[in-house]
């Protein structure tokens, strides 16, 4: 049972994740200090600027605590948060946590002019009507053996899970469709 969700609040769109959780009636806190992880059994790493969040994770001594947390608890990353969960090679100003076995390519669709919204196919409830925003979004590749695809856009994977952790290339926290957050809570509770 998810008792408390932490939303990593170093930079980015953490407030809208919090709003989603509030709407679902799920107990949650904004996490700004590593000690606050102890109270949580799911951590959300929001969208934002991945290089900024990567630096702030290190400057605020979050790297080890998040990696340890992820050994026994779930982490859910959206967009920048997904890039940080990946096992992508360290690049200039960006050091992923290596929590999940896949690679992410930043800004894979191009600059903001190529950002878009589109309807996703959700594998888990077999629907085609989840409207998602992709903002300077990444693409995933080199999916590890244990990785399951949970949603696609134009046949490409945009939501994945290894059973414990979850990641999306889009922003399920924007808008009023709570299905993604609700599904993840159900999986962790199952």
């Amino acid at each position: 049972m998810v008792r408390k969700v932490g939303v990593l609040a170093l930079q980015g769109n953490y407030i809208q994740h919090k709003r989603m959780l509030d709407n679902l009636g799920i107990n949650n806190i904004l996490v700004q200090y590593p000690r606050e992880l102890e109270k949580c059994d799911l951590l959300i790493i929001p969208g934002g600027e991945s290089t900024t969040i990567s630096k702030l994770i290190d400057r605020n001594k979050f790297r080890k605590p998040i990696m340890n947390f992820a050994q026994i608890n779930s982490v859910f990353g959206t967009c920048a948060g997904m890039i940080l969960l990946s096992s992508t090679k360290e690049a200039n100003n960006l050091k992923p946590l290596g929590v999940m076995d896949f690679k992410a390519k930043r800004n894979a669709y191009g600059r903001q002019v190529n950002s878009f919204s589109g309807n996703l196919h959700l594998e888990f409830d077999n629907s085609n009507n989840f409207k998602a925003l992709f903002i300077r979004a990444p693409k995933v590749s080199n999916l590890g053996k244990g990785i399951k695809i949970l949603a696609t856009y134009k046949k490409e994977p945009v939501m994945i899970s290894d059973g414990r952790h979850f990641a999306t290339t889009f922003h399920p926290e924007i808008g009023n469709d709570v299905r993604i957050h609700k599904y993840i809570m159900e999986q962790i509770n199952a």
Partner: protein
Amino acid sequence: MGQGTYEVKVGLAEMLKGGVIMDVTTAEQAQIAEDAGAVAVMALERIPADIRTDGGIARMSDPLMIKDIQKTVSIPVMAKCRIGHFAEAQILEALEVDFIDESEVLTPADDNNHIYKHDFKIPFVCGARNLGEALRRIGEGAAMIRTKGEAGSGNIVEAVRHMRSIINEINLLGTLGHDQLMATARDFQAPFSLVEQVAKIKKLPVPNFSAGGIATPADASLVMQLGAESVFVGSGIFKSEDPASRAKAIVDSVTHYKDADKLAIASSGLKSAMKGLDISEIPEDQMLQDRGW
């Protein structure tokens, strides 16, 4: 598929929350900004403090310089066009900058009209001194609002005045009955539908950032505590003695804007801030915030 739609534009503004957007004039400065943890850079030829001293007409930057910065950093790159100069905005769109600032820091090109920003696929940010001005800009299609403050002054007083005005007026709207909103829209000179929306949601419909005079970690904390969701730092970083340290300190102070212990650490041992100007030293006809209609 929707590209360049309003929600996609506001989406990028949402991602920049809790961060610092830094003015840079060269690729080297852009790299310093990214290394410090900036969420975006604003590429411009002269920072506001220099525009103020140099005088003359301030225009859109050279595309070559913008491209150079785009090649250097991976974070979003913004650029400024003159108020009402939609041709400059079209050029910036062709360059695929990530955000356009229709800015009072440059010399206005139209003394009556702003750009109709819904015509563009790229999001725009505009300055505002009060709620009416913010809602007029949103009505034209701005996807982000920032206080104007007084750019290039290194003086936070005007940004504080503008943020307090916007927040106070939002709070006031929240207390009014529906029958009072049309008169309020008239007084604010703002579109009625947006006045109605703000009265209901009790915030701006787009992210509300602060700019104009932020020079220290404490300045950043002050405007964040007053209600800003991110800060722009123009002259404050590269007019200071040690830009890299100051840039990092301001990033840290935005993350922990309510934590005085962290702010004390961020504020420690920074070399001199930009010198700055008292607002009374600025001749009235050189006040940048009065540009915009």
